[in-house]
């Protein structure tokens, strides 16, 4: 038996050579120190202040726009007949889509024992919740009479008037609110041990009380851990179908209608793939600067980013396949209205939006076939942003181009957004980032307790090389050192 170290390619996922998930010789103590340190530091980095100022201002813009909308009416947007939905529902679907990554990472990857998820799941879940909050705003404010929006809920009343259970919009109400509820629960529950850590480390009275309340009396006993693990598993099982169902239901808004370009059976899987695609892109967009600014490169490693890039590549290709399938089916169906809708998408007045969508969603992610692209921070950052742009346009293309030219040419129109449309959309980003910045400032952004479960607990020094016969847990690899070297350059 030879003990000579064997050279292996970077991405060898060989059970004998499982790469470590946490780098840099971190111990439990250093992880706690690093993650809690962000929250406990008296002052966040200057970048945080700048970012917070910008996003808070944008949030103000959002609320100002909403106030104006409520005061004047939906006409302040560029909507019209035939385009009765545009930015409002585009933004809704966009944000809901983004909200898919969190639960996918937390729940589905958890069930599939993808342990690399632990470094990023807290982060992604928080992002999910904030995205769903942003998403929830739009259906609520897009109605003509907001003061009667509660008609959408099945509230018992003496007139026995119920909502219309045949309407996909009502299904939406249930799907999104359920999703919001479950993902918030899942997020909060997963955070309890870490909140207890923060409580225990707190020096001021206020922090002690607040984190103490949030920690719900966590003491870290075996019994608590046992309950915690079971509950986490159950919630994960509960959340998993939701990942698929929410966006399927959102897609029903379109698929159940008769508008050519909406009325398509491919929508549920297509929408889910797109949601995961955009969600991962958004996680990446947020994660790259965060790990940079808060010194978390050893916990959120290049390997995490690379894995996410692979998922983006996979889902981006699925989305591309869906685009192609739509065209094929439109032709294959022989339905002239359907055929026209798709030709019009690609070559009509909204062709610019369509080609932005195709380039950002299908062509650009193909770069991720290259390892250099998957491991280059600037490329990852740019592509993740482009994917988000592309996915926003995907919803815009689906909603607006289909509506703008449906059956009767006499009723065709062209939607042009107003300043209020644009500012409301920009403001929703403000809200999203404001919430996110508050989260990274006050809550543990990495699931410390979970990360510790994937760390080496005993064994040889991390830099010591072992052969296949010497496998015992996690084996560091040479290339990791190289990557770190390259990255720190």
């Amino acid at each position, binding site marked *: 038996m030879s003990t000579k170290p064997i050279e292996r390619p970077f991405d060898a996922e060989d059970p004998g050579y499982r790469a470590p998930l946490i780098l840099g010789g971190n111990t439990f103590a250093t992880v706690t120190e690093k993650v809690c340190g962000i929250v406990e530091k008296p002052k966040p980095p200057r970048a945080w202040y700048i970012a917070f100022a910008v996003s808070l201002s944008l949030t103000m813009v959002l609320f100002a726009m909403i106030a104006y909308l409520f005061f004047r009416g*939906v006409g302040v947007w560029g909507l019209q*007949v035939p385009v009765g939905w545009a930015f409002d529902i585009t933004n809704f679907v966009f944000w809901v889509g983004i909200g898919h990554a969190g639960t996918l990472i937390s729940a589905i990857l958890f069930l599939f024992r993808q342990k690399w998820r632990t470094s990023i799941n807290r982060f992604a879940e928080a992002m999910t919740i904030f995205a769903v909050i942003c998403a929830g705003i739009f259906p609520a404010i897009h109605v003509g009479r907001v003061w009667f929006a509660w008609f959408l809920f099945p509230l018992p009343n003496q007139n026995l008037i119920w909502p219309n259970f045949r*309407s996909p919009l009502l299904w939406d109400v249930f799907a999104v609110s359920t999703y919001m509820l479950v993902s918030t629960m899942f997020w909060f529950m997963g955070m309890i041990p870490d909140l207890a850590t923060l409580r225990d480390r707190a020096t001021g009275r206020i922090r002690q009380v607040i984190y103490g309340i949030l920690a719900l009396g966590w003491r870290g006993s075996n019994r608590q851990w046992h309950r915690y693990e079971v509950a986490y598993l159950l919630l994960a099982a509960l959340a998993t179908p939701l990942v698929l169902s929410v966006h399927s239901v959102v897609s029903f808004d379109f698929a159940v209608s008769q508008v050519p370009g909406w009325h398509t059976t491919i929508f549920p899987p297509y929408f889910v793939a797109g949601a995961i695609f955009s969600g991962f892109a958004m996680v990446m967009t947020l994660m790259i600067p965060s790990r940079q600014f808060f010194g978390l490169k050893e916990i959120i490693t290049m390997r995490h980013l690379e894995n996410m890039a692979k998922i983006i590549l996979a889902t981006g290709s699925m989305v591309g396949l869906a685009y192609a399938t739509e065209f094929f089916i439109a032709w294959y169906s022989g339905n002239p209205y359907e055929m026209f809708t798709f030709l019009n998408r690609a070559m009509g007045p909204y062709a610019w939006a369509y080609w932005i969508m195709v380039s950002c969603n299908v062509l650009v992610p193909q770069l991720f076939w290259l390892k250099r692209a998957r491991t280059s921070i600037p490329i990852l950052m740019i592509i993740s942003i482009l994917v988000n742009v592309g996915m926003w346009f995907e919803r815009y293309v689906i909603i607006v181009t289909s509506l703008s030219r449906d059956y009767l040419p006499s009723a065709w129109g062209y939607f042009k957004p107003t300043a209020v449309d644009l500012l409301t959309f920009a403001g929703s980003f403000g809200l999203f980032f404001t919430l996110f910045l508050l989260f990274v400032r006050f809550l543990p952004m990495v699931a410390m307790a979970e990360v510790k479960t994937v760390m080496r607990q005993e064994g040889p020094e991390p830099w010591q090389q072992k052969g296949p016969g010497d496998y015992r847990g996690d084996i560091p690899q040479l290339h990791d050192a190289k990557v770190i070297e390259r990255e720190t350059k």
Partner: protein
Amino acid sequence: MPPVDPTPASPPTYWRSLEERADSPEFREMVEREFPGEVWESLPPATRRGFLKVMGASLALAGLAGCRWPKEEIVSFSRPAGYTPGVPLRYATSIDRSGVGRGLLVVSYDGRPIKVEGNPKHPGSLGAADAIDQASILDLYDPDRSRYPISREAGTRRAQSWEDFERFVSGRLATARTRRGAGLAILTEATSSPSVADLRRRLAESAPEARWFEYEPLTQDNERIGASIAFGKPMRPLYHLKEAAIIVCLDADPLGADPSAIPHARDFAEGRRSADQGSMSRLHVIESGFSITGSMADNRHAILSREIPAVAAQIALGILGAEASSLALAAGPEPRRFVAAIVEELLAHRGRSLILAGPGQPPEVHALVHRLNEALGNFGHTVELALAPDPERPTHRDAILSLAAAIDAGAIETLVILGGNPAYDAPADLDFAGLLPKVPVSIHLSLHENETSKLTTWHLPRAHDLEAWGDTRASDGTIGVAQPLIEPLYGGRSPIEILSILVDSRPLDGHAIVRRTHGIDGDDSEAAWRRILHEGVMSGTAFPLEMAAMRPAEILARFASLGPPAGDPGGLELVFRRDAKVHDGRFANNGWLQEMPDPLTKITWDNAAILAPSTARELGLQADDRVRLSYNGREVDAAVYVLPGHAAGSVTLNLGYGRTAAGRVGNDAGFDFYRLRGSEALHFASGLSIRKIGGKHAFACTQNHHTIDAIGLRGMERRLGELFREADLAEYKAHPEFAKHRIHDPGSHQLYPPHDYSEGPQWGMAIDLNSCTGCGACVVACVAENNVPVVGRDQIRRGREMHWLRIDRYFRGGEEAPQIAHQPVACVQCENAPCEQVCPVSATVHTREGLNAMAYNRCVGTRYCSNNCPYKVRRFNWFNFHKETSETEKMGMNPEVTVRGRGVMEKCTYCVQRIEAVKIVSKNEGRRIRDGEITPACAQTCPTQAIVFGDLSDPESRVSKLHGHARAYGLLEEINTRPRTQYLAKVRNPIPGAGSPIPADGLEEHHG
């Protein structure tokens, strides 16, 4: 209305304050003016200052407005017999437009007129009313109408009372009378009123030196002179399109611009419906612009207006043969190819053909047309003659010229202008606006303080036609009586009342004047008078028909000497046309009309320089380009609209826009082409040049008008054959059910169980595309009936028009000679309605009678229903569109129809309020609803009766039979919406063998 007490407002019985009781002049003025200060005159839309002003005014109003209505004269507290509050009553009346009486029935609720319909007993109406007639309700309640007499002296404008005016004028008249009326002149708009004629006669007796002028910018004078050439006296031709198998229109628009368009359209539709019996009329139209008649043509040729006389000559050569040889020169060297076919058709249908010339064509063409109709034996069959009234009247053009000359010569000291707006619409070369201040005393009676009023020394508020007593004569001479539906809202008076001040020693009120005119003022005349008021018309008063002797030699001689049209023949041709919405401009302040899409261009709130695609290309112009039009030293800036099917080299300019003192609605809408129109050429001329001045004008169109992208155009053309189904007569005869085979029905499966329609009546509608002329009367009827808001130009640009009923207009075939498809589309009340399924709150639901009902109170406004509506007929209240509806306009709203607030979806209901009203009556009477008893507003007013409504569960109802008709089809029925409105396919009747300009339907595309 229980005839309104005709006496003018008696002194107030109640007093509002001690000042009023003291009757101080200050308070009087304030009450007269109602809205003190200049608030309403100077209100700009939605500025901060404007807002504050309105707030201030509203506070002031809160105190006053409460006392304004109802007045005891209008709604009697002692209920008259037969009158139930809340039950609408209909009153017959008539109004005059450009010298032709229009018979109306006005629906009145508790003393408030709310809707205008046609009087079935009136020959000019036959129960239908056109868009302008119907919109007169909005004019009545226009808050911009002037409210008190105004005097202007040395630039200061002062509010006066009627007493002030009467005092002033009596002094003035006394002087005039002593001089036998010398220096006194009266300028009226064209009027058919026998009372005006009577007063004029009386004036001539008491003041023989007084001069009388009648001016109208859009006039039928060429027809009059043409008849004078042909017959030696101005005969008025009366056409019977029903009898004509071949109709040839030379620049004529008998179905659109003609004063008798309604009876013409009714007749024409009958000649088209007979396609079901195997034969139908054939309409040939030769014109420059695209008229409504042109859009109905089977065979249309777009040529310059100035070339139409030559075409007339060519037809004459073909029909009259050697007799017309003197016309060879006028006919030009090379006859047009289409003329031979037309001549052949005409000769084959002697006595059953009809040639019409348009009002813009020179009198000689009219005369020749008379000769041709005579040669074809059409007199007595398709055309009859009656002696026109007032045969001695000079033409409107000559009248305004001589008035201008008299003013210039200083011969006019007192000028009384009754209606009209000469400062705006007189020929540009007269500079009437410049002349008017030269008259020492000028008095202008008009609804608004308009361009002319601002140049006169006195402005008097005019009573609206629905507020005043009066009388009119229809085209055929039938006298109609006008009775007031409401006390004058703003204290206006009618022209005859003003004339009475001039004529009668003791001025009479309108009621007395009309009765005196018709000799129904004796003690025993009350019953007869009441009967006339009830009918609205005096039967047997039509002009006697007579066949005057024709002067063929005179006609041909005059025609042969017809000179070329005015202007430099090198430039473009410009053609002035009446506008389908604002007429000559007098209706510019009417929001319903401004917002009604033009039948052809679909422009709202504007007019345009309309030209052909080829001309635009030649001139390097594109749609919406801003241009400067120069002609004969005059210039106007306008914008270009490119209309397929327009004659190349010609530019159509619709008159009536670009008003500066119309009111808040009409100001700054469109371009004033009167500034190009001189007395040398009132109708068309050559020598127009167009220069691009940079920039684009944002037209507010309800239908795409841009040169649409290639993909869109192809998509549109492909589906048109399914949406608008049509066939040639030959195909229809061979395949009567052609409409049913225009699509491939993939079968219908339904996700949810269908509704139960087994009980009660089942409402349905049928729209005959073969009769619809696209005139737009139904659109305005729907607006008036259903309280549809006016949203304004900017909202229409954004695609937010609120019309429940729209008329889709499509072009088929090449851009040079397209065919037009007019298709009225409102909610088709799908039995399997896509909107109902997606509404999350069940705000749109189905009734057992098959209506797709909207519960406004339940609607939250997700707009999902509209997105899912394949017909896109749902309309959303993007804002509170009724926010700016004035208090007066609110009086004109239909109390039976909910006024929708902001954020609510709305759409056609099949006029459910009318259905319910009849259901209540029939239930009380314990009987079934009779067929035809319920008529939605659109169907009621359709001049061609293209829309039929009724109960589908009754197999004998008209609508059931139409649904079973061979030509019936459902729009988009292949997506299984199961619409309750069915369309009857159009049948065209092109010249056999000429070949249809339309390629065969895109049928093969989607079969199988």
